[in-house]
């Protein structure tokens, strides 16, 4: 077999096989192949290899694979710094507003439930279930605790709208509130046992 004098052609043979050469390049290579048995034999070998690999590849059930393809969902865009700052301020304002707003609210349903449960225990000892249900209703509707504590909107309490406060001012306000009242919002009001006692009487 004669040696090829143009090694670049051999490098393009896979592209010729796969049909990705420009027509001008194809014509150039065909011209070369007409006089180069080395490149022609290599092209035939590559074609045989390609054919063997193509035919021996495992068959894929494309319809089954296609069923697994998800619907398009746009990727979430990264937040800019401005949005992160705004989101942070909103969270602080909402948390602080909720905290101050909650100071004027009656005890939560869980706390009311504690009052009711106290009475239930007492009444179940007597076995008087009708009295028990009446007491529960009474404690839920006309609790003395409820009448003593008046709901106060935070705007009245502070005289300002916290949602319009700057982050710095909100922080100062938080520190000030902690200084005035160290009790955290999560603490159970200590008046519950008193309420229970009042209802027993």
């Amino acid at each position, binding site marked *: 077999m004669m040696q090829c004098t143009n090694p670049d052609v*051999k490098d393009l043979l*896979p*592209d*010729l*096989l*796969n*049909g*990705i050469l420009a027509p001008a390049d194809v014509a150039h290579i*065909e011209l070369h*192949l*007409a006089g180069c048995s080395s490149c*022609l034999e*290599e*092209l*035939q*070998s*590559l*074609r*045989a*290899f*390609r*054919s*063997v*690999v*193509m*035919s*021996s*590849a*495992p*068959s*894929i*059930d*494309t*319809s*089954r*694979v*296609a069923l*697994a*393809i*998800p*619907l*398009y969902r*746009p*990727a979430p865009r990264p937040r800019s710094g401005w949005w992160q700052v705004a989101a942070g301020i909103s969270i602080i304002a909402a948390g602080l507003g909720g905290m101050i707003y909650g100071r004027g609210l009656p005890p939560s349903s869980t706390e009311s439930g504690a009052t009711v449960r106290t009475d239930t225990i007492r009444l179940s000892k007597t076995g008087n279930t009708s009295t028990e249900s009446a007491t529960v209703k009474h404690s839920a509707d006309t609790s003395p605790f409820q009448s003593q504590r008046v709901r106060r909107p935070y705007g009245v309490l502070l005289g300002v709208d916290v949602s319009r406060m700057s982050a710095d001012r909100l922080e100062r306000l938080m520190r000030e509130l902690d200084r005035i009242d160290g009790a955290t919002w999560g603490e159970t009001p200590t008046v519950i046992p008193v309420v229970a006692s009042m209802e027993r009487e």
Partner: protein
Amino acid sequence: MSRLNDPTLFASPSTPIGGPLLGSDPSDFALIAQWKAGDHTAATLLVERHSQALARYAASLGAREDIEELVQDTLVRAFNSLDSFRGESSLRSWLFTIERRLVLDRRRAERRRRGQITLAEVTVGTEYTALDSLIAEETSAKLQRIVQALSPMQREVFTLRVVEGLSYKEIAGVLDTSEGAARVHYHNAMKVVRESLR
């Protein structure tokens, strides 16, 4: 009659790598846009266009079982991250990159599970089993043996270059190596092939 006139000499490519360049079939990029617009049939067309190539590449990587599952996982992962596909390479070579990472990840996981076999040992010991039960003719059997004789890297590059028609630049992208290294691997593979054919 000149062998150049043999109509089978130039294998007709089933589909150019980036999808049809001309003609009525939409390109990969057009199909991606259609899928993003809510047309799921576009995804089906893309799957049909690239699944077999992914199966061939999986075989060249030494995947033995569950090739269809591997192809499916590759495509699902690709579709889930198509927003990150910038079109700097062909979709197919991008899919090959994903599939290769998937195979390597699974090998690493398998290695951790077994705790004994190194990745090199796994790949060196891998046979080109996709051909095992399918080649009856003597010539094909000989070609099979030649491919088996290639190193894993040579076999991978050889498949990407000869069977899939990727450029050296695209191969380098898939293998996460340099274009020059891809070229060297291919030429070393061809050296083995030529010597084996003598």
